[in-house]
């Protein structure tokens, strides 16, 4: 495809535009610490966007990610409160995340239910379980090392630790999606599940694995958010799913499956983060910022098609005159 017509190019331009906007709006914007803070706050959503990209490329969707984040945070708080050490508690909540993902995956692939409906159900179920587990309490006494992981930086730099986790994951995801047979199977499955199955791809198993991965990484995001806020609460991450899905779709992943790239999604995550940060520095409240994010999503999806149609209408006219 033409480099100029690629989604990634558009996103780089957008990102540059938003950075420029931020610089104009506030003198504090172009500060290193501001960028570090901005990045730190994005990481849970960024990590959840990676497996969701694969899920959507394969033609499914997972709306339950934010609730799994909440359940993982609540469970970690509960077990730590019981005296279970973190080295045991963290693997435990990751396993619960994988199990929740397995439930999604089996309902979609074995019971044949639409993933939109299944994960809408588990969106309520997992959040409900989070409240059942922890109630309205907050667990806020954590070991210093755990907190340092959440909002500390790699020594001698401004790079927050969660970013390191995200960067490694993003590299692995990009490699798997774009350079391996697994990635090619994912695109094939998303483009045409029937044809993929007939050509020997184990579609059901592949999709189940994706949901498991999505559950486990959402649980990891829950651990990171708990560390960053130094607080385990059942309502942690409420509302994240909109930002995550918006980032994936803004990143050029087709909601119908079979299209999209990790690079696009990573750029989109940062474009949204920078836009929100710039608006925050300009005293726009987060809720009002959502208007800009929503409009951005619609324009980015509708825009290219509309431009193409105007252009083709224009060239048709030239043919006729």
């Amino acid at each position: 495809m033409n480099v100029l017509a690629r989604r990634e190019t558009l996103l780089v331009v957008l990102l540059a535009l938003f950075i420029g906007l931020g610089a104009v709006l506030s003198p504090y914007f172009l500060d290193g610490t501001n960028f570090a803070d901005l990045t730190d706050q994005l990481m849970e959503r960024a990590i959840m966007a990676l497996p969701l990209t694969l899920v959507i490329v394969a033609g499914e969707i997972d709306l339950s990610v934010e609730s799994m984040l909440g359940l993982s945070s609540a469970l970690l708080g509960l077990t730590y409160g019981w005296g279970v050490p973190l080295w045991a508690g963290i693997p435990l909540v990751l396993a619960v995340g994988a199990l929740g993902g397995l439930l999604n995956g089996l309902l979609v692939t074995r019971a044949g239910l639409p993933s939109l409906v299944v994960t809408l159900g588990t969106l309520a179920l997992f959040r409900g379980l989070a409240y059942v587990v922890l109630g309205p309490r907050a667990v806020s006494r954590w070991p210093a090392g755990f907190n340092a992981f959440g909002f500390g930086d790699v020594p001698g730099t401004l790079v927050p630790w969660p970013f390191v986790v995200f960067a490694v994951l993003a590299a692995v995801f990009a490699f798997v999606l774009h350079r391996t047979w697994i990635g090619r199977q994912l695109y094939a499955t998303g483009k045409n599940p029937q044809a993929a199955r007939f050509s020997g791809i184990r579609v059901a198993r592949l999709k189940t694995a994706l949901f498991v991965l999505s559950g486990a990484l959402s649980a990891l995001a829950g651990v990171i958010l708990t560390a960053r806020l130094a607080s385990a609460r059942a309502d942690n991450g409420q509302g994240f799913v909109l930002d995550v899905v918006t980032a994936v779709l803004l990143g050029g992943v087709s909601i119908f499956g079979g299209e999209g790239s990790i690079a696009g999604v990573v750029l989109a995550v940062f474009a949204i983060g920078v836009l929100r940060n710039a608006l925050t520095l300009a005293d726009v409240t987060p809720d009002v910022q959502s208007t800009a994010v929503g409009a951005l999503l619609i324009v980015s999806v509708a825009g290219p098609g509309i431009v193409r149609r105007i252009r083709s209408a224009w060239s048709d006219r030239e043919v006729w005159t």
Partner: protein
Amino acid sequence: MAGRAMASSVDRAAGSGVERTLAVVGRLREFGILVALAGVVVAVSLLTPRFLSLDNLGEVLLSISLIAIAATGQTVVVLTRNVDLSVGSMVGLVAFVTGDLLKQHALGVPEAVLAGCAAGLALGAVNGLVVTAGRVPAIVATLGTLNVYRGLVFFIAGGTEVSAIDLPPGYLGIATARVVGIPVLILCAAAVAGVVAYWLRSSRTGRSIYAIGSNPAAAEAIGIPSQRLVFAAFAVSGLLCGVAGVLWGARFGTVNAFAASGLELQVIAAVVVGGVNIFGGSGSVLGAMLGAILLGTIDNSLTLLHLSQFWLQAIDGAVILLAVGADAAIRGYVQRALRAQGRR
């Protein structure tokens, strides 16, 4: 089409009672949910006799009346193989704007109610335009407008809220008024559902809406103006969210910028639990209403049984999964049985 032909062959065969029952169940999608509802009602009324009191049943219906109105519009949209995620934001925006207009004494009550409904229609029309003219998939478009509309409420509200003392009694009275002993809110919901159900079932446009969702290519081929009807479906959803928004302000009195956020999940849950196929083409307003009633009944029973509110959301989620799973299982069973019947 094939399914219907098979069903009628079963009628003609009129074999054992089981087969006849299967034929009825196969056609009546609402049957499964009716059984589930009956099960819940019997179980809860055995546990607490208070459940079956008229007052309590009225309370259940009242608590779901606004969800039911929005779910009626959602049903129309889902039938066309689309989805409207922006309903919560539309209800919230209309509720706040209507309340604010009355608070500022900008309009009288009837005018403000009309303005609220018109605002809903306009918001729905924007959704419809983005989906049809902008060719943006519905889930993406309405996820976008969910954010845009909610942001607008916060922008307009700017930290203020509308409380009951700011509102004229004529407006708040809508929520407490009763006609022949039945709350007006319930009557509104029933009227909206009845009109839309009749329209979908019996009008040419209604049948075309089913056709679009059932087989878009075929619908296009026989000359159904799909794009125009999809636009209309989103406009209807917006208008009904406008109605629900106007009533929301009257019912709760206090409206802040968070009003009705997350309502979309309850509305879509009602529609899906009610057996409306998320991929369009089948389901009914009656089913969606039963779905809303089932979810409302469960919420109400949890309160009556003094179960912790924290279980509420978990059980709602489990009910969605069970209802959809059971629906799929029953449909699969019926189809297999009918196919076996056809072979014989």
